[in-house]
């Protein structure tokens, strides 16, 4: 054997911590320990994310350009349909739409692929041990990369249309994205675990996401519905995706009604129909904070449930 000198066990035990698998099977690791396990395997998470990206555009000449073409096409189509053909309604509708669509796509596509991540990786789940959560989080990571790529298109469109996003409200964007990831991660864990036992979940999710999309103010502006709901508009905000999407729209689209632009603060001659809530940064922040807090609780429950169901993944899959 012509291998160089190899370290012995005693060397290894000095440096590497000794993970103990299943010290006590009755007491399953709690949510915090599960997160620590995922953190310990962050390199695997990065590698699996990279794998998803590589495999998706492998052997295609344009590669990542495909990620950009999708929002570009949306921009063109919506610009033609709403600005030229219909010629009415919300100014720069394509920008408004894309500002909400990008975070929604991050949510819905990740949730869809996260749900099938355990069942789709059966060969890994039945043969190797590692924190299973990593499998669920990897497609979220890959879609996050797509999200940033597609945001470039949106940024380009803003330049092209000479629209300025709100500097003030843009400070909320990192928090909005963080909240979205928190909520998405928790939900994906639940769906992925349940899908192992009930494959109906993935089909149900498709319908659920369709309904959810139309319950979220992406195609239509928030105030069209909220103004009619009156004092019940909080019900609309109870959809966790609403405050997230609203923050993106407020920061990027930056226009609260069809009359005057919020950026210029100009008093519109004819007060237009409302688009986004004309509220302070604090109001947007408060809504996000509620969703974030609820997501933390949900994540705890999701990790607990995932841990309960995980034990039999290898045989149920």
């Amino acid at each position, binding site marked *: *054997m*012509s*291998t*160089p000198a*190899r*370290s*012995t*066990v*005693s060397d*290894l*035990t000095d440096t*590497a911590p*000794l*993970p*103990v*698998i*299943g*010290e*006590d*099977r009755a007491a399953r690791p709690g949510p915090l320990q599960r997160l620590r396990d995922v953190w*310990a*395997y962050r*390199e*695997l998470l*990065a*590698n*699996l994310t990279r*794998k998803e990206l*590589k*495999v998706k555009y*492998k052997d295609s000449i344009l590669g990542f350009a495909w990620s950009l073409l999708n929002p570009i096409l949306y921009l063109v189509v919506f610009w033609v349909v709403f600005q030229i053909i219909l010629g009415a309604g919300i100014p720069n509708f394509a920008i408004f739409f894309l500002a909400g669509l990008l975070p929604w796509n991050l949510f819905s596509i990740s949730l869809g692929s996260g749900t099938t991540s355990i069942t789709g990786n059966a*060969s*890994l*789940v*039945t*043969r*190797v*041990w*590692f924190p299973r959560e990593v499998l669920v989080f990897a497609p979220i990571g890959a879609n996050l990369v797509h999200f940033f790529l597609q945001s470039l298109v949106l940024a380009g469109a803003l330049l092209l249309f000479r629209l300025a996003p709100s500097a003030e409200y843009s400070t909320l964007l990192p928090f909005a994205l963080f909240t979205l990831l928190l909520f998405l991660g928790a939900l994906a864990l639940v769906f992925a675990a349940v899908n192992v036992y009930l494959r109906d979940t993935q089909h149900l999710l498709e319908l659920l996401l369709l309904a959810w999309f139309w319950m979220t103010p992406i195609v239509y502006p928030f105030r069209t519905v909220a103004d009619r709901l009156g004092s019940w508009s909080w019900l609309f905000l109870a959809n966790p995706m609403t405050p997230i999407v609203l923050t993106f729209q407020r920061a990027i689209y930056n226009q609260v009604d069809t009359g005057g632009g919020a950026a210029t603060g100009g008093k519109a001659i004819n007060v237009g129909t409302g688009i986004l809530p004309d509220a302070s940064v604090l109001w947007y922040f408060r809504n996000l904070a509620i969703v974030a807090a609820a997501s933390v609780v949900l994540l705890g429950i999701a990790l607990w449930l995932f841990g309960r169901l*995980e*034990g*039999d993944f*290898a*045989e149920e899959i």
Partner: protein
Amino acid sequence: MTPAIEIESVTKRFRLYHEKAPSLKERVIKFGRLPHEDFWALRDVSLAVNAGESLGLLGHNGSGKSTLLKCAAGILRPTSGRITVRGRVAALLELGAGFHPDLTGRENVYLNGSILGFTRSDIDRIFDDIVAFAEIGPFIDNQVKHYSSGMFARLAFAVAVNVEPEILLVDEVLAVGDESFQRKCLARIEDFRKEGRTILLVTHAADLVRRISLPSANRPTPSPRSARPSSSGVWRCPTRRSRARSGTRRTRSGSAPCASRPPNHAEVSSGPVIT
């Protein structure tokens, strides 16, 4: 000395569901409970493998060897009992489990390494060893889907044995590659044993166990830290019939291999060491 692998009265029950899918009505009536039969793959199994020991599991098809290994690897959760594993584990349950056909050999080595819990810099260090061991040469940058099955198996095995786990769980995967490569695999496992790593091996072939797990007369001391020299032996999984009948607790304490050996052990272990 604390055992590296400690299995305490582990029981594993599988549920065998009947093939016919029940109607929704049936499910509702039975509150979602489906008719099933219990199958006890393991019943009250106890054994311990000390650090630096090699242990072979022998048994017929369906006697629960692989189930035990999967429980030790953390893939299956035992129905009851405790399993404690101290050390970094590499489980060779099936070769190339984490390999993606569309990625190149190089990318797969890094991916597979991280699945086993190793960092990029760990793999960087041993990457050349892996390629050399797999005898794969320039093909390392080709997509794995273009590999021959032998190349695939060699690369997968090379990753698993070069990541230097403290504990190696092997499930009848040594029959890969041509004869010279098989010899090389066996030699590597023998090296593992000499370096004082812990091995739990499932096999059908008793002679394989003899070759791999039994110490030679001038047995090297595995590592200065371990108080005892490495010992090894064969632990036979009870056959399905005998388990169903007795259900008794079978213990094999690795620290006293001679005293508690199952009756079948002697005939296997008396042979010479062929490596």
